[in-house]
């Protein structure tokens, strides 16, 4: 009862200083918008990685150059970055593929060679995109389909290319582009296929396939003095159950090939995404903390305004006390006022965040996930801010001496 009445008193007093209330609320709105947005976009990025892992990851094996231990990939990458490591010559070579493919437990092994270079439609339209050289089994391993044309196969010539859907749209505005010519690092290629749209930028391949051009390995080698520099080998085991056996056999075989040097790592599909997943998790947490600081700033705004309100309404407090209001009544009145600002700010913030998330989602091709959990977290945080920062001024108001308060002339 007293709660409802106090809510009405609070709404009246907030309404009477509308500009001030709105500006105070703005602080909370900004804080809630940033937290909700970061949590929901972070969640959707993470989710797109998970989808791919669920679809494919538990069946695949990934071989990567370098000797890092799989357990510590994330930490090593995040906290011990080696800026020149990416420029080192990779330790995986074309000759490694054959012995792996020959293993009984392995169905296929597809090499992946990344070539940096520009893709020109003509002199006017140039795109920086990743050029990928691989073998036909790559499409099978990642279950890639083409929306138009075909994937590279044994019979297709060199100088043919399959491109990602987004790249096709960026260059031509359509994906009906079979037979058109493209220049990859200055060499003319004929487009023979356009890939179907795939999930977002983090996946097992580690490459955004929507923005890449895929050529055959033999073609790719021509850009690198005839030598294949492999960034990754994707292995499909004969049976999903045999994966651990396959991993073990691959390790033994490769060790032999590399004269006992452990300059490669064999990991499962899930582990391959751990790096990107934990990186996104890390950045999401970090930015959410920064956004949390903005909510605290909003809270300080509430505290400031509430203190001004208490000072301005000292006489009112005196009158209320003389008419029988107890300290608890006054405390509740001012606390509810702070809570109204913060809860209302929280709601408005969530609504704005949903709108912005949908917009950003459209721009980045992500499906924003605004879960009930994210909304409750944001709302909960804003309520906490309201209580924490409203409590001080409310206590100050409640403790005012009624006689001095009645004497107040302001």
């Amino acid at each position, binding site marked *: *009862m*007293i709660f409802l*009445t106090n809510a009405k008193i609070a709404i*009246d*007093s907030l309404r*009477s200083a509308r500009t001030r209330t709105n500006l105070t609320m703005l602080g909370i709105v900004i804080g809630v918008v940033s937290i909700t947005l970061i949590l929901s976009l972070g969640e959707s990025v993470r989710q797109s990685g998970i989808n791919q892992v669920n679809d494919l990851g538990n069946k695949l094996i990934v071989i990567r150059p370098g000797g890092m231990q799989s357990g510590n990939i994330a930490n090593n990458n995040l906290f011990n970055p080696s800026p020149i490591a990416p420029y080192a010559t990779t330790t995986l070579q074309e000759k490694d593929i054959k012995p792996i493919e020959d293993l009984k437990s392995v169905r296929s092994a597809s090499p992946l060679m990344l070539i940096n270079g520009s893709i020109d439609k003509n002199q006017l339209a140039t795109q920086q995109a990743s050029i990928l050289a691989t073998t036909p089994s790559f499409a099978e391993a990642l279950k890639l389909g083409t929306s138009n044309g075909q994937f590279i196969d044994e019979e297709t010539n060199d100088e043919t290319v399959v491109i990602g859907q987004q790249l096709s749209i960026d260059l031509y505005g359509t994906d009906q582009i079979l037979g058109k010519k493209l220049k990859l690092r200055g060499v003319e290629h004929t487009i023979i296929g356009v890939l179907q749209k795939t999930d977002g930028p983090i996946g097992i391949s580690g490459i955004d396939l929507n923005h890449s051009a895929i050529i055959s390995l033999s073609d790719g080698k021509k850009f690198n003095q005839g030598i294949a520099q492999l960034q990754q080998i994707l292995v499909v085991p004969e049976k999903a159950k045999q994966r651990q056996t396959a991993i073990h056999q691959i390790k033994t075989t490769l060790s032999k090939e590399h004269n006992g040097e452990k300059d490669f790592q064999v990991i499962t599909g899930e582990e391959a995404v751990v790096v990107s997943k934990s990186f996104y998790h890390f950045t999401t947490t970090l930015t959410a903390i920064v956004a949390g600081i903005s909510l605290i700033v909003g809270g300080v705004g509430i505290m400031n305004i509430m203190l001004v309100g208490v000072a301005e309404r000292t*006489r*009112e407090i*005196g*009158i*209320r*006390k*003389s*008419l*029988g*209001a*107890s*300290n*608890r*009544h006054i405390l509740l009145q001012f606390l509810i006022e702070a809570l109204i600002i913060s809860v209302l700010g929280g709601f408005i913030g969530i609504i704005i965040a949903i709108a912005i998330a949908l917009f950003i989602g459209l721009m980045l091709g992500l499906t924003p996930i605004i879960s009930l959990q994210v909304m409750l977290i944001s709302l909960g945080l804003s309520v906490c801010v309201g209580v924490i920062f409203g409590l001080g001024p409310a206590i100050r108001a409640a403790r005012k001496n*009624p*006689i001095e308060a*009645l004497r107040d002339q302001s």
Partner: protein
Amino acid sequence: MTPKTPPPVIKLKDLHKNYGFGDAITTALDGMNLTINKGEFVAIMGPSGCGKTTLLNILGLLDKATSGEYDLDGEPVESISQSRRAQIRREQIGFVFQSFNLLPRQTVIENVALPLIYSGKTHTKRLQLASKALRLFHLQNREYYMPHQLSGGQMQRVAIARALVNEPSIILADEPTGNLDSRSSEIIMQELSEIHQRGNTIIMVTHNSRLTSYADRIIYMLDGKIDTDSKVEPKKPDLTAKIPLSAKRRKVATSKSKKKVVSKKVAKKTTKSKKKAAKK
């Protein structure tokens, strides 16, 4: 047979109130002994700084005495908790201030209903009671006015309605007419007198000796002590002045020729109500 004396509502015994510390101590009340019985209309007078307002604040539980005893309705109140003090304030005491102390952002009826919020009445009940209290003071057609739209006299009547809405046993008035012209002062005093006749205890601080004529006991204070304490025969309220000014003006404006008739009517009315009051 001894005449039946009503029970004391207020009993002060050797009450002291000091302000400040050490060398800078100011004594506001210096050993007050006072008993006020139920239904008394007490006027407290005295020069500035003699401790009248301090006494009123202590009686109204807004302030605490430094030492001494204070029994309110037989209950010692010096050592009770803050929340109990607040409860007594809202149930047993009604305040009327010199500067009205209405909340400027709330309507007249909301102001009157204010004490009821804290006694936990529902919204509808609050408005009903407030409306009833306002009707007593002929302000029923000003319910949704804002305080700044009222005259000083009307504001003070609203404040008195607010003080009465919880039906307290004691009304404490601190110079209730201090900010009013003589005509409005007269009306306010008559209102208080009427409330007194209904059985309320009224304690009023004033500087204006003319107003003490409505009281039945006059206490003169000097230097924090009671100087004189005398019982007098109170003046009966003259109810002519209570007819709302606006109503009078309207009648005058409608027809000048009817002026005499109207004034007769008013006179009749007043004699009737005088008789009623006398009967009471």
